[in-house]
């Protein structure tokens, strides 16, 4: 069976919205509620953050959600339990995003198997280097039909982008600017030059732009240059202030996609 991420991009290649949220946040039991609400609201794919004590690539908003989720008692074991039956209700592609150490402690092979059994389609581990992945992880991932999504940044050399493109499947995560997550949100001409440069490379993989995407304007702008965009910190802020998750999630996703809801 082909991977849901691959199928999604085969069916739709424009204006895809990928939303990140931290598992077990704001409350431990909110994970599946948020996932289902995102699907209903029209997100195209979802990244569930595996909370970590030391998320070095993340800014204050996601850090705080990680701390809160850990305080709520979230762990990989609990997360897999929560997600056990998601495929009965959720159709969209689901990725897990997090840092390497909890995965290593869980056991890489166990983790990949569990992802596959649960219906997880891809993984994003920013601190797993390309070469280590190829040497030690790729075979295991392939065996279980799990995709590893790689990041590129404005500083990534053309040769390395080509290498990443050649080993990627699913999509490439384009980090919009030199920053941790949750930065200003402005997409300026520097970013657009970089987006155009990547567009001109005609990569074999689709691209989604993330970091600094916060609402409809930046989403629409990113979608001009890529197959879609990823929102994280801005969505976490919505969750943080939400007293009623479902309607708030519907309003947010509708707003980002430019659909006005009453």
């Amino acid at each position, binding site marked *: 069976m082909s991977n849901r991420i691959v199928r999604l991009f085969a069916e739709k290649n424009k204006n895809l919205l990928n939303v990140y949220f931290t598992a077990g946040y704001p409350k431990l039991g909110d994970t599946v509620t948020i996932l289902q609400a995102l699907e209903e609201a029209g997100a195209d794919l979802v990244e569930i953050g595996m909370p*970590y*004590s*030391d998320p*070095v*690539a993340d*800014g*204050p908003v996601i*850090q705080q959600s990680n*701390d809160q989720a*850990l305080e709520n008692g979230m*762990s*990989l*074991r609990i997360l897999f339990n929560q997600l056990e039956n998601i495929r009965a209700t959720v159709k969209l592609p689901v990725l897990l995003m997090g*840092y*390497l*150490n*909890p*995965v*290593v*402690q*869980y056991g890489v092979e166990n983790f990949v198997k569990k992802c596959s059994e649960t219906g997880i389609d891809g993984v994003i581990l*920013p*601190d*797993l*280097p390309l*070469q*280590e992945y190829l040497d030690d992880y790729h075979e295991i991932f392939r065996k279980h039909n799990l995709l590893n999504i*790689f*990041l*590129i*940044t404005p*500083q*990534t*050399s053309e040769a*390395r982008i080509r290498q990443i493109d050649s080993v990627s499947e699913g999509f490439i995560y384009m*980090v919009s600017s*030199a*920053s*941790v997550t949750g*930065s200003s949100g402005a997409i300026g001409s520097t970013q657009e030059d970089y987006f155009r440069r990547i567009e001109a490379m005609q990569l074999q993989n689709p691209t989604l732009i993330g970091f600094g995407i916060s609402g409809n304007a930046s989403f629409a702008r990113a979608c001009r240059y890529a197959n879609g965009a990823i929102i994280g910190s801005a969505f976490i802020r919505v969750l943080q202030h939400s007293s009623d998750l479902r309607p708030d999630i519907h309003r947010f996703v509708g707003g980002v996609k430019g659909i006005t809801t009453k």
Partner: protein
Amino acid sequence: MEVLAQPAFEVDEKGYYGRFGGAYIPEMLYPNVEELRQQYLHIIADSGFEQEFRYLLRDYVGRPTPLYFAGRLSDKYHTNIYLKREDLCHTGAHKVNNTIGQILVAKRLGKQRIVAETGAGQHGVATATVCALMGLECIVYMGKLDIERQKPNVERMKMLGAKVVAATCGSQTLKDATNEAMRHWINNPTDTHYIIGSVVGPHPYPDMVARFQSVISEEIRQQLTEKIGRPNPDYVVACVGGGSNAAGAFYHFLNETDVKLVAIEAGGQGVTSGHSAATTALGKPGVLHGSRTILMQTEDGQVTEPYSISAGLDYPGIGPLHAHLYDSGRGIFASITDDEALQAGLELSRLEGIIPALETAHALAYLGRLNATPEEVVVVNLSGRGDKDLATYSKSLDL
């Protein structure tokens, strides 16, 4: 690990010491770290670099630091104890050996700004110092808790023109300051060099820092030859947080198997108390701050918040070289509690007239357990002076 007959303690091409090391960094940091990896050996091997480095170590830092025979301390422990006086380095600790080296690397890489993390503040002061010397902008991240307990060093950094930024996340100590410094580097990838203060972080940092600190053991060998007619002591004892002073003191003895290398970790209130930083006793292999090493963590792989009375040892990991020394059995690892360290600091002050840093006091406290014979020779790396810890000493010892 049967390779012990021919121990290899040098880092390999991919940045590993045995099964520890590597460069586990987000893609955002890849170009910076890769640039450094490709350049550092060439830069260090350049004769102009070597000359400038040696010149600054001699005329600015005050090297070589003395190797002092501590007579009264030796009498007490019935052996021969030499103190390698890194506390006499400019700025008061060994940290400056590394910051001199790295600022020269940063200059050759064309960087205009320096970011650093600091625990006790010694590395922060040493970084602020070389930035002032070279006219580069300096930003130091320091845990909020450490800013409170190491006030004199915060004031020194400010006096030297550095911007000190409080790390308010997590346990608000060294680990969190390191996270913030890495985030700063992600946000400023092209014009900034990150001067890591210990033998931790992604390859090539552990190796680069160890090389700059290796001047310590290079001098010990020369000085011992002059004093006792042989370069090798029976023991070298050093404290380990991340492990830079120990790496420097061990470096030229790593393949000298007749020298026992003793690494002392911070036991805090006791290894089993839940308030400790004894990494090898409490940790297991994991990935933190860019390298695979031994790490204090929960079963779920969350990094544990360490505790030590000494801000410089309050770190949940150790450098990958030390993880390998532990794993291979080449190093002897032990831990010393807060109280033992305080008493050892007082003892050295009263017996030798030297007030050691609280970090260093951990190494000194192990002398009572070493059981060295009257014929043997022990070198303790006196990594820093204790002025910054006077408030803690006075309060805890009721002086």
